[in-house]
Each structure stands twice: as structure tokens, then as C-alpha cells.
């Protein structure tokens, strides 16, 4: 299986000044937002990256795009390590990988018409003449289900779901291999959410895209992705194929995430017991003897085919 995007041991530290050392002396306190994360997005597959806010999942997405510089680690896009490239060298590779964000309102320029927005990637990459750009933009608007009639409208005239379609059209303009989707459906209404999920589903099949789908909505992830990576406090705690996670989750954090999905059956109301973050770290899964440990992340132990769980001893936990 060919790999479209591989993240190897990505870490990101943010530093915060703390002046506790004295009036003129301040220390830098390190906060590891992302800690040695390795994710593999195979060609023509959708990988879901899930976790709560603050788990570092969006930071991973931004680093993969090199919109944020990793503290350490490599980003390999279609076999090329792009993590050390200069901005000039990076530009042709950027066309291969595009991103869509949660808030379609702030990610579309309100001064531009929709076709100008969708055609902007052509301008930046100096492709096509003006006429072709406009025609290609109209085609793209058509592909995402808006129709060329929308070409001369402005973002404020659209609903949230329609704006998200424009973001998707723009991301597809350069025919990328890899798409990073950062919570693209979280801000949408129920009936529109299904429309956008289906659109991504179709586009992935038709255009052969590989997608890293970042989301906190496990129900959405279940319908759309092939494989799930669960992040907690900057680390990968479990990764497996979608149904393995839903039917055989091992890590207590994954279990608590699954348990918090509302049950769509009023006959089955139940009381939940909530585990605190400290309990989570104390009650690490007791794993059967790991048959195999991932080379690029020795903390992850294999429990079944394609299914890896974080088994590292944690700080503070006695073992």
C-alpha cells in the first residue's frame, strides 16, 4: 500500500514565560502540545484524528501543512521529506496538499466573489490564463454541488453548508493528492452535516484523495473514515481500523470518548460514570504481552492486526 502522507515523530513545544524566578528573571516553561506523533495516511484512504480540544489534533494538521513549524519530526509527502524545505522549495509541494477549516466564514475573503476565491490557487501558482481560471472555477463550483450560477456571488450570501462547499472547491482546485480537513462539519446543522460528509465521501472516491480528517465527533468519523487515531494530551493513545476502535477499544481514554456519544434510544438511558484525567493515567490498560512494537513509536504496542495502544508508563504512575 502506497503512503500519501507520513508524519514521523512530530513534536511541538510552546514556551510560556513564567516570572516566578524573580522580578527580572523569568523562566521559559515548556508545554508539549504534540509529543512524538506518527501518523500514516495511505493513498486513497481517510484517516480520522480524534480527541478533545487541547489534545493537539489541530496542531498536528497545521504542522503537516507546514503552517506551523514542528519542533522536531519529519513530514513526508508522496515520498519527499518536506519538513526542511525552504518556502521557495516548498511551494510546488504545497499544491499537492490542501486544508479546509471548521469556520468557513473566516476562511473565505469577504471581498472576493466565489469564482475569484476558488480561482485564487491558480493565481498563486501562476497557472492558466484569466479565462481558463474562471472556467475551471465554475467547473469546481459545479463539482461541489453549488453550480456555476453561484460564481458571481459573495460569501456572505451563502449559508454555512454552502460556504463549506466553497472551501472544499478551493482546496480541490490544484488537484491535490492529500486533503487535511480540520473539523469541517462541526459548525454545521444536522441536515447539512450529512450533505457535506457525503460530498467528502464522493470526492474521495472520484478524485482518489487521501484525507486526514480531524474531528471530535466520533459519530461522523465512524461513517467516513477507514482508520482512527486517538490523541490525548498531545500523544497518540490508540490507533486502529474504525470498527476495531468502536468494537474493541483498549485505552481507557478511547473508552471514555466512546461512552460519551449520546445514545439515540430513549429506552436505553443510562447513567455514566466519568473518569477524571488523573484516573485515566492511573488506570492504564494492562496489555497482553505486546507481540510487536511500532518502530517509529516504541510506546505503541500491537494488540491485534492494525490495532495499536499506548502502553508507556506515565509520569507519576508507579509500575
Amino acid at each position, binding site marked *: 500500500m502506497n503512503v500519501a502522507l507520513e508524519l514521523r515523530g512530530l513534536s511541538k513545544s510552546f514556551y510560556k514565560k513564567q516570572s516566578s524566578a524573580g522580578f527580572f528573571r523569568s523562566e521559559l516553561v515548556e508545554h508539549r502540545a504534540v509529543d512524538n506523533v506518527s501518523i500514516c495516511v495511505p493513498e486513497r484512504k*481517510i484517516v480520522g484524528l480524534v480527541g*478533545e*480540544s487541547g489534545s493537539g489534533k489541530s496542531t498536528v494538521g497545521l504542522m503537516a501543512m507546514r503552517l506551523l513549524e514542528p519542533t522536531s519530526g519529519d513530514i513526508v509527502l508522496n515520498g519527499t521529506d518536506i519538513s526542511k524545505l525552504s518556502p521557495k522549495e516548498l511551494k510546488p509541494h504545497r499544491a499537492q496538499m490542501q486544508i479546509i477549516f471548521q469556520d468557513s466564514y473566516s476562511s473565505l475573503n469577504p471581498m472576493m466573489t466565489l469564482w475569484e476565491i476558488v480561482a485564487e490557487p491558480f493565481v498563486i501558482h501562476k497557472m492558466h490564463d484569466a479565462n481558463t481560471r474562471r472556467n475551471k472555477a465554475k467547473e469546481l463550483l459545479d463539482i461541489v454541488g453549488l453550480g456555476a450560477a453561484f460564481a458571481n456571488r459573495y460569501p456572505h450570501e451563502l*449559508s454555512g*453548508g*454552502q460556504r463549506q462547499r466553497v472551501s472544499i472547491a478551493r482546496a480541490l482546485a490544484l488537484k491535490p493528492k492529500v486533503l487535511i480537513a480540520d473539523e469541517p462539519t462541526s459548525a454545521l*446543522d*444536522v*441536515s*447539512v*452535516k*450529512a*450533505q457535506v*460528509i*457525503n460530498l467528502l*465521501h*464522493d470526492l474521495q472516491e472520484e478524485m482518489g484523495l487521501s484525507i486526514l480528517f480531524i474531528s*471530535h*465527533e*466520533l*459519530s*461522523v*468519523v*465512524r*461513517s*467516513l*473514515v*477507514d482508520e482512527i487515531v486517538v490523541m490525548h494530551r498531545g500523544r497518540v493513545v490508540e490507533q486502529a481500523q*474504525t*470498527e476495531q476502535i*468502536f*468494537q474493541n477499544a483498549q485505552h481507557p481514554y478511547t473508552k*471514555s*470518548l466512546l*461512552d*460519551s*456519544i*449520546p*445514545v*439515540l*434510544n*430513549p*429506552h436505553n*438511558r443510562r*447513567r*455514566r460514570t*466519568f473518569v477524571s484525567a488523573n484516573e485515566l493515567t492511573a488506570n492504564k490498560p494492562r496489555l497482553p504481552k505486546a507481540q510487536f512494537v511500532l518502530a517509529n513509536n516504541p510506546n505503541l504496542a500491537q494488540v491485534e492486526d492494525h490495532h495499536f495502544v499506548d502502553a508507556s508508563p506515565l509520569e507519576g504512575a508507579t509500575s
Partner: protein
Amino acid sequence: MALIEIENLSVNFSSPDGQVQAVRDVSLALEEGQSLGIVGESGSGKSVSLMALLRLLPEQSATINANKLMLDGVNMLACPRQELAKVRGKVASLVFQDPMASFDPLFKIGDQLTETVLTHFDVSSSEALIRVEKMLDRVEMPDSKRVINSYPHQLSGGMLQRAMIAMALVCEPKVLIADEPTTALDVTVQAQILQLIGDLQQETGMGLIMITHDLGVVAETVDNIVVMYGGKVMEQTSVFDLFDTPRHPYSKALLESIPGQLPGKRKLKEIPGQSPNPLSPPAGCPFHFRCENADQSCIDQMPPLTRWDQTNATACLKVAS
């Protein structure tokens, strides 16, 4: 006597583009101690209906018409401004989606909660503080002593929402109106807050109105449901009937479009098209142009809300026939 009685409520907003018909001929009721979920997409009029009941809409732009707008025996249409303040908070309290925007960033949480008590009860400020502390314990606020002396920005979203619920309940209202109380929160925190609201409702016997677009939320918290679409009531039913035997095509379509119900990667059943424009709502049933069963008769007339029994009513010609 019903706690809340709304009959034939319509709300229009004047805007530069014309009249926005946010709520059209909505009737609903809540008995004491009952829980009611109002389900709908954004723009369906679910929040505006309850805001109109509490007279929280801007008077310059909003026109409210109703045959009846009663809250605990008070006619809210004729209620003078000074009286309104007594009803809000004491009889009915609100919890909003965004707790960060609901608190004043310049005052400590404790001060904002005691202010509510002092407004409604003739007690000393030390007595008020005791009540606030008790209430914070009841909403299971971790570290409540620290929270009282904290400013809103120092707390997490989940803690703020707990404080918001404490503030809403500190005057022991007869009904709690929760408007998307968990939408802005993290998944695990969402489940905790829902469980908390459910527990408090059981303990205090207060009425509960849960306004949400999330069917999972109502499945876990309420007894009865009103489904709204395009400013109108589409279906009234019990939570069991909604999930077991939904009658209205819109309710059915909503249930079917929820992702993740079945294992495996699959396409979802989507509702084509978009919600109607409230500036010029379509003739007839507002759902007709997205509905599989619609025909000419659905365009010619708005289906009346047909009552089946005590709890069930549907506004659909195709269900009636």
C-alpha cells in the same frame, strides 16, 4: 395549571430586506415538572419562541403576536417591564450555549451569582453567599471555593457552564430553559452536563425545556418533543414515539441523517436542499421542496397540526391521509 402556555405565537423581525418571519403560529405547553425538548435546525424559530415568551427580544425590531403567552399564570404579553424582571430568574431561568459570553468578564463568579440571589430575595449578602456555595456544591463544581473568587476567563468551558447552571437554579425557578447548553463544550464534558441537568430536574421537580439541534441530547434528557422547521411546529410527540415511530417526514429524515448509527464507512441519507428563507417562506408546508412525499396539495395549503392523542400531533397532509 400549565406552567407555560403558548398559543398561536408569531414573531416577526423588521429588517432592511423586509419582514423576517421567525416564528409562525406556534403553540406549545409545559406542565409543572415535565421536560420538553424543542428540536430544530438553526433558523427554525426554536430559540426565538422561548425568547418571545420571556420577552427578551428587542422591542424595536420584534413584533410578537399571540392568542396566549402565559408563564406560571402571568400574561407575558401584558406584563409591565418592572414585573418582567421578577418573573425572569424566579419563575423561569435560562442557560445559553456560550457560557463565556453569558458572564460579565469584569466581575468574579461569586459576585455574579450572589447578585442574582439579592435581586430576588430579601436576604443579607452573607446569607446569599451561603446559598451560592450550596448551589455550587449541588452542581458538583470542583473546587467551589476557588471558583467563587475567580473571574470567568480563569475557568474552563465546562466549569463555566456548571456555574451558569448554578446561577440559573440558585433562585429555585419553576422551569429551566436550556438553549443548546452543551453545543460549545467538549464531548466528554457534554455528557457530564446533560447528566447533571437531568439529575437536577429529578431532584427539584422543576420543569425543563431543552432547546437543541442534536437528537442525541433529547434522547437522553426529555419526555416530550416538539419538532420545529421553518418557524412552524411539524410534530409534537413523546420521546419514545419520536425514536420508535416518527410520523412526520422531516422527523424521519432528521433521524436517518444522523451519522455513525451503523458500523462501517457508508454514505448517509441526506436531506437535499436547504432550509427555507424566512424573508419569503414558501407557500404551504415549509418542508415541501425537500420532502420525498410532497405533491401539489402540500404547496397549496399549510397542513394543520392534526392531533392524534394527548401527546401526538403532526402537521403533514400525507400522514393524515
